[in-house]
């Protein structure tokens, strides 16, 4: 069995430990004997919508985000939509999350158009949310947020988790992240996946389905993961 991962705009959108998410996806597949290929597709490259099972799309700085938005306005935006329609799984964080929605509206200047595979939109906020985050989904989700964009969900997307500590999508409705089909968006880094292995495994299982059908993933020794997770949860509860 093999898994093909695309690190989407990995040279432009990789901040806040995004590399750790890709590393976690790779290792957790490899530890189960699944062969993994990771390729970076960047602005100006032609994205082959048939090729990848899993897309990781991380965060970036404003300048880099402009380059990426411009690239996604062309044929690569269509390719991302085709890939999602074809059953690929997508995990996006922060800036990548925003660009998978309908648009990002800054205080000044034109709106950045997104690819609309998540029914969400984002507007610039005055305040920056920085700190530890604890949220509950099927299992607790723990990480760190650092964003000023305020993201709101439309009816086709459901929240990934409910905020216990922190701001989440917008600091108002206690939602964190979004899920729509096999597309996930979130504001959590830290990195997200190493300390939330259940989410990493969910994304890997979704991705394998595309070419290999339903796959039961073997259990791994997650002692280190659980300890890091528990101490981060305790810490988030003590100080944001």
């Amino acid at each position: 069995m093999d898994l093909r991962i695309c690190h989407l705009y990995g040279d432009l959108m990789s901040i806040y430990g995004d590399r750790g998410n890709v590393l976690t996806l790779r290792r957790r597949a490899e530890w189960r004997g699944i062969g993994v290929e990771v390729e970076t597709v960047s602005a100006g490259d032609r994205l082959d919508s048939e090729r990848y099972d899993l897309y990781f799309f991380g965060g970036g700085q404003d300048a880099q985000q402009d380059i990426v938005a411009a690239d996604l306005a062309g044929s690569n935006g269509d390719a991302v939509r085709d890939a999602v329609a074809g059953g690929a799984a997508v995990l996006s964080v922060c800036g990548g999350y925003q660009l998978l929605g309908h648009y990002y509206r800054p205080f000044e200047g034109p709106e950045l158009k997104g690819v609309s595979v998540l029914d969400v939109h984002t507007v610039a906020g005055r305040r920056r949310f920085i700190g530890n985050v604890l949220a509950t989904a099927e299992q607790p989700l723990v990480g760190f947020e650092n964003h000023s964009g305020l993201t709101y969900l439309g009816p086709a997307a459901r929240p990934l988790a409910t905020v216990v500590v922190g701001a989440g999508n917008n600091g108002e409705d206690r939602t964190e992240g979004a899920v729509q089909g096999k597309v996930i968006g979130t504001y959590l880094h830290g990195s997200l996946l190493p300390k939330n292995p259940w989410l990493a495994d969910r994304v890997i299982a979704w991705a394998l389905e595309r070419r290999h059908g339903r796959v039961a993933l073997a259990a791994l020794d997650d002692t280190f993961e659980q300890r890091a997770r528990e101490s981060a949860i305790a810490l988030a509860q003590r100080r944001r």
Partner: protein
Amino acid sequence: MLTARGQLALTASKLTRAALRATGRGATTLPGLVALTLHPGVAGEIARRLPKGTVLVTGTNGKTTTSRMLADVVRLAGWRPVHNRSGSNLARGIATALVTEASWIGSPRADGAIFEVDEASIVAVARLVRPSVLVITNLFRDQLDRYGELDTVARRMRDAAAALPPDARLVLNADDPIVNLVGEKFAGGVIRFGIDDDRVAGALAQNVSDLTHCPRCRARLRYDRVVLGHEGDYRCPNCGFARPRPEIAATRVDVDGDGTRLVLGAGEGAIVRVPLAGVYNAYNALAAIAAAHALGIGVDVAARAIGAFRPAFGRLERVDAEGRRLRLVLVKNPAGFNATVGALIGAPGSVRLLTALNDLDADGRDVSWIWDADFEALAPRVDWAVVSGLRARDLALRLKYAGLAAERMSVVDGYEAAVQDMLGRSRPGDEVTVLATYTATLALRHTLAKLGYAKEFWED
């Protein structure tokens, strides 16, 4: 004469310092905070009385080492500089150094100042003390929760340059594109330093992606040679932005286990021996030489001072503990970590680690940077690692993903317990690397001092 408010602030600040010292505590920032609270202008009033002027050293990595080297250089040139030696590099630390150095009526005993300044404080400090020289060592991704994105930091540097007096000079790293861009719009004099030796070449750090693109026009940069991270020989094929020729250039860099030998300029250039390992310390020495040049101090004096340099708190500082030779290395961001580890694994033999990760304000509250740091290069060389700090379990997990086997790690809460565990695993004569973030280094050093192995660092 100081203004009346300045005098009041100075007196209150000096009383605070006297009280702290009398009770046996270090006084590296509180007296300055008192002064700044009562009258923010007092530091500037004292700084303007320094006849030889003030040098500010900022940047992501190398501030402490560069400013300490420069302080040694100017001292050898006959200055009596005031210097924030203890790494207290916010406005309050600088104010503390100035009020400590001034007499009770505000006359400075020093004749010049060398200050390292935190990147987030540089604009405020530049406005406060009106420096004659501003040195920018390099700019990398660092503690995003505190400093913001690299573009924000770069903007701050341009604001600081714009706040300089008209006759001030900028000293810039030619090999760092974003630092180099700070000089582009600067009206005054610029002195650049860099490494011109084609044999010093690394790979572009793909995981630190802030600078794969031109900081001026955003097209993809081309590198003919990469020295460290995004530092190297770069040019933009779109707008023509390119590495300029540095005035202070190392044309030969020979690295060995415990230092670097630099040849400056063409042909029979001056030779500088840098007694600290790692190419990043060669950059620090070049920054200090370039700053000395800006102050009219020759390379022969600079070379002599640098050759006799002793490292600062947590910068390859050595401590002996029961015959174990500890080397303290402060790490705080991916670029600094990669440079340090590059030097560490450049020497033969396996690596024994006492390592600690904290997430307090001074460390950066976001520990995600460890996932951008190249632990994969380090892990295969690690014999064992004692892992501690407030985020010990995050660090242990990072080491696991880098390939370090669980049985080679012990996760130990508490600094004293961690030191004891390290002593239990090692033997006299062993070299042990202490790799920790800022407050963890501070705490470990305090623990080592309590156990009788090191002095408290404000005694420097």
